[in-house]
């Protein structure tokens, strides 16, 4: 059984699960639940996964298998802002790799890693389908199109400044 503190902490999640749960196919809503939980808590911690396992009665090992299969699910805390560089074909042909290189140099992290101050997580993303703007990078939901490696510094500075103000 979950302890009482966890129950409170995950009330919202429990409520969401009861809304989408299909008793005939208990596992079928798992991916929706995981999306919701990640949006709510930032990443899928061991506690979150175990809680979902208890409520849905799907074994935690099974859920863990699903979480690690899909690249959008994260099991580690993420930085405040997500920087993604599109690695689709059109972006690659138009120099996406150089944008990524410039970001790696600037932030001193590799894709999948988070800066020490927990401000930025860098990732490569699959094609986001805005190939007319290639090459593309995004910071959270903001899209930067036709990016030149020289512009990267300015973009990062802009977000750093924003974060300092808050």
């Amino acid at each position, binding site marked *: 059984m979950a302890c009482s503190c966890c129950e409170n902490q995950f009330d919202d999640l429990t409520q969401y699960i009861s809304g989408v749960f299909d008793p005939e*196919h208990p596992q079928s809503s798992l*991916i929706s639940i995981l999306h919701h939980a990640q949006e709510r808590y930032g990443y899928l911690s061991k506690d979150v996964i175990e809680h979902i396992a208890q409520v849905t009665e799907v074994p935690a090992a099974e859920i863990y298998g699903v979480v690690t299969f899909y690249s959008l699910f994260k099991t580690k805390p993420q930085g405040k802002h997500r920087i993604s560089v599109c690695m689709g*074909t059109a972006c690659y042909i138009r120099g996406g790799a150089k944008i990524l290189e410039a970001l790696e140099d600037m932030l001193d992290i590799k894709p999948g890693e988070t800066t020490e101050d927990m401000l930025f997580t860098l990732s490569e*993303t*699959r094609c986001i389908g*805005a*190939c*007319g703007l290639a090459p593309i990078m995004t910071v959270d939901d903001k899209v930067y199109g036709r990016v030149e490696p020289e512009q990267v510094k300015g973009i990062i500075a802009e977000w750093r400044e924003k974060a300092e103000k808050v």
Partner: protein
Amino acid sequence: MKRKIIVCSGSACIDPGGKRLEPELRRILGDKNAFDLVEIEEAVCYGHCGSCPMIVVEPEGTFYGELNSEKLARIIDEHIIGGQPVEALLATQPMDTSRIRMLGSADFFGKQLRITLRNCGIIDPESFDDYLQMRGYEALAKVLEQMTPEQVISEVEKSGMRGRGGGGYPTGLKWRQSTGHDEEKSFVICNADEGDPGAFMDRSAIEGDPFCILEGMTIGGYAIGATQGYVYVRAEYPLAIKRLRYAIDEARKRGLLGKSIFGTNFNFDIDIRLGAGAFVCGEETALIASIEGRRGMPRPRPPYPAQSGLWGYPTLINNVETWANVPAIFLNGADWFAGIGTEKSKGTKVFALAGKIKNTGLVEVPMGTTLREIIYDIGGGIKNDKKFKAVQTGGPSGGCIPEQFLDTPVDYESLMKAGSIMGSGGMIVMDEDTCMVDVAKFFLTFTQDESCGKCTPCREGTKRLLEILTRITEGKGVPEDLQKLEHLGKTVKRASLCGLGQSAPNPILSTLQNFREEYEAHINEKRCPAGVCSALLNYYVDPDKCVGCTLCAKVCPVKCISGEPKKTHVIDTSICIKCGECKKKCPVKAIYRK
């Protein structure tokens, strides 16, 4: 006269800073007190993304491209207030840079025929009434009132349509195989897990007209006797998901989804299922596993989903584009549809044209149009007037088609003969600056990363193939590597469990076939002809630009740069470790790689 300004709100037209044109337009209209003169409407991607951001002024249909605040202000002053279209700001034809007066007269649209995208850019995707006005749900009404399921299936068979997801399996046959099973339930699925990098047909089709996909699925549900449908869509497409949700909610409210549709005893509903970033889920059995909430791994076929699919019940899976075509077939008749295209490939196909091309965008052409027509007449040719090298179709499952095959008509069989596949519709144009070995490596990196790991040929084979390619691009390749690539590539193709592995070696095999000399240059001469593979490039000082400031010599960690102050410096390429520090440091950009 009240004019209408239609603002394109496709992904490419959103200003690179993330800003939309529309608020700016409203601000200027407010400043000039001109609100009463116009109505503003948002439309989804016209597909002419090379001219973005753009607007169209109705009723003239005047097409303005590459806009900014100043240009908008001028259009409002002269056209909206003054009544005279602004000649100087009209969008241009890419080939001869002449001005395009009306949107429809652009060369870009001239060779196109829009069936799948018939409503995209015309209706407001968040207005159900707009869709109804474009004969929306007329096809479903006709099917439910006048046709038996058997007649519906024969009509689809007669149309000759083949699956638009890439495989080209006859759609009518797939429908027929999904019926006649003694099961209590069956399902309909729309595969919107558009994973090929560089492909955005499905995203644009859903964002532009989510309704016709739902109508198509409902017709499919009636034909095979299903009561539940699912749209499996990538989580990376938030706008498409939002618009699908809207369309489903509205259809339910109006009794076009749910119980007794159109007052008949036919019940059918549709739900959305989200992907979570796994390319292999585009494969039908993997997609079904993912909807069931499991790891998205494919399983051997047969049994095909048509016999045993979702939770073991018969399941009819079609791609977004296929579903979008269904209502059009019933509106205009199977004979009309069968009259478009070539003998074996009927109808039209949507391509996402991108890469080193002037007009990036979405194009829909009748089957049988040649690659040359698409790339030059519609796409406007190569950017910066570089030389064409290859066009890549079919994404990571396809191949690169060289210049001598440019007159290949676009249909399933001809593309296969040219060493590629139709695929889902990504079309990436490459110029002389693209290294074909690097492109093959790019696709293999993708498929190797996305291989689910279930079967050995794909899991191990793609890894070894990638290792060999990497070795070649680093200048460590040996002549036997080419035979190894061919032999292993063919093995992976034959022995893999699903489409991912069976097609993963295609980018290598097709470039080996058509661009073997580039591989040989990498291996034998340790040279990258396109100047892409960094390990094979050397740093040089341009004597015309060098001012002799000595900064490069100071920063070089291996002291391979020599030269006296105020005199041209020289890099000793035999010692250079290619760290690139000198290039970064040089204040006059005199250091280059070649």
